[in-house]
């Protein structure tokens, strides 16, 4: 469909007004919301992600495209719910208890939303229980945790421990990140995944949800 291609193109240009307008038109033309999402918005974001990986474009370009994605997504969301189409995936995100550094976590949130995921951002200084309770009530299958301090890092391990104790660790996956965190540390605390930067976090979350 030409209009879906136009949505993808406008999204790549970061033209949120045009994406809004075209998504509206596509809905009026009775295209299915899933089709608009997959072949328009997500198709556009996939190109953006690939170009970013190849260093052809930079982070601001990705974020502007993500903003354009929201412009379309906001209109599609009620329709997707109405039709009973599940979201691409729901993630509970936050900076762990004792830690007030949320820049990296915010970036991950923007990028995840840009990739079509539903993000419940709990902000900073989030107690371990809060992550788990929210994931349960919101029916989210991934918890994403961020820490900048070596002193607060153990809180991530606390979350994975509680998940194990409550036998929720098969149902709710965990991904961790932040400057002092490493792949090794993630393994040590039995986190399911680790993202070394925001773009990588999106790839890893996709893998957790078993997308491409």
């Amino acid at each position, binding site marked *: 469909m030409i209009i879906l291609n136009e949505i993808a193109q406008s999204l790549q240009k970061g033209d949120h007004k045009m994406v809004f307008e075209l998504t509206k038109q596509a809905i009026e033309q009775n295209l299915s919301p899933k089709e608009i999402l997959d072949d328009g918005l997500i198709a556009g974001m996939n190109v953006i992600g690939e170009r970013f990986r190849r*260093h052809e474009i*930079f*982070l*601001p370009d990705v*974020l*502007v495209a993500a*903003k354009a994605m929201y412009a379309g997504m906001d209109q599609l969301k009620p329709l997707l719910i109405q039709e009973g189409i599940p979201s691409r995936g729901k993630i509970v995100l936050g900076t762990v208890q004792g830690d007030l550094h*949320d*820049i990296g976590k*915010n*970036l991950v949130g923007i990028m995840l939303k840009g990739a079509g995921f539903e993000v419940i951002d709990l902000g900073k200084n989030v107690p371990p229980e809060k992550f788990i309770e929210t994931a349960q009530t919101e029916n989210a299958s991934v918890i994403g945790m961020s820490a900048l301090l070596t002193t607060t890092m153990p809180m991530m391990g606390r979350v994975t421990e509680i998940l194990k104790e409550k036998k929720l660790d098969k149902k709710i996956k965990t991904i961790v990140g932040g400057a002092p965190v*490493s*792949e090794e540390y993630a393994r040590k605390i039995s986190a399911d995944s*680790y993202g*070394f*930067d925001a773009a*990588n976090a999106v790839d890893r979350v996709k893998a957790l949800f078993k997308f491409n």
Partner: protein
Amino acid sequence: MRPVIKFLDEDLIKKIINEAMQILSTLGVEIHNDNVLAMLSDYGMKIEKDTKKVYLNEDIIQRALNSSPASFKLFDVLERETHHFSEYNIYFTPGSAALNILDHSSQKMRKPNTTDYVNYAKLVSRLENIASQSTAFIPADVHEKISDSYRLFLSLLYGEKPVVTGTFTIEAFQIMKELQLAIRGTKENLQEKPLTVFSCCPTSPLRWSDVTSQNVVDCAEYGIPVEFIAMPLSGFMAPVTIVGTLIQHTAETLSGIVISQLDKPGAPMLFGGSPAIFDVRYETTPMGAIETMMIDCAYNEIGKYLGLPTQAYICLSDAKLLDAQAGLESATGATLAALSGINNISGPGMLDFESCQSLEKLVLDNEICGMSLRLIKGIEPKEDFPSQPIFQELLEEQHLLISDHTRKYLKEEQYFPGLVIDRANRSRWKEEGSQTLGERAHREVERLIQEYQPSELSDETKKEMIHLMENEAHRVGQDRLPQRKP
């Protein structure tokens, strides 16, 4: 404000120039070329026939300086302006005339061939911070009598950028001029839109060979710009002090200016050089020595004081491999040269005392040059006052990544090097193969050569150049030119 560094105050510059003039008038300069001596004699200069020595008085030097152009431009093969050598404008060009190249696969130095040169020309065409080509190394698979012109031929055939070059013989000037005329059409057009710069090197101390002095005259005749490459060696073929070396460098360069300007007033020239200190431990001429670079920056100040555009061999290294020394010496040189405003900065790609080119180093240096070009743009306010709106936005949005201000100024404020300089975090670096700088550089070389787009020079002109070069090969007894990749 464009940042500038200086090593000499005006008084010292005047004293150095005055001293250099005294040397030329009292001790003279040897010029082993009868035509040039005859010309200088016609101007009333005292000549010693036996020693080929000529004594240049202050009046004649001043006369030459008065007609020296303060600036000139270069144009590519398609006649687009690429350089304006003037004031503090800077341009990078690869180090030239290496005998060897560093082979990436074997990590050994070897003699280069036509394929290497073609790859080099393709690579330079893709390097955004390298403004001109240079005839960077000498292909060993052609007769040595055409090894100078053949380099120029390949550069003009594959690349569009202007070329810094030079001849090894008097005869070679003919074909090197013909190749340029094939592109420009007429002598007048070549004069109006110079395509090359010829390096002309006096021999220290205070001597011009037959070949180099004739080159100066021949270039002047065709309006081909020259760069004088005086090479005093501090403590060996020049006084050990930097000031003493500068006096000698100035005297040698002034003698070149006299030859050029008396032959053709207004002929374009660069006040250049490749001086060095002499390392008495190893009997070598370290181009990466900080004192060598200080000499370069200082004679550039003298050239500027005399009202001439300048050149130096400075963004290069004495390392044998693409190692930390190679990076640090080249980057120090590029930075100092940029801050000094040396107009034509020669050196990128070069290792081992100007004797070995490396394509991998060239792509690294291209990124170093990019940083230097950013450096000299300095720090300028851009919608920074009043600052309250941007900070308000920051506090509201909690980041400025997609702010209009960021989007507008990001690429102006920050230079993004290519993939050779590593700025990934460790995890990403590991995920991308834990590559060394050399490996990343090699990957870039391969990618850029792959992306090469042929020169847009007309096929007709290319054919004419091939015809000219084949004839030249025949002239020296070589049946055919080596096979070339498209």
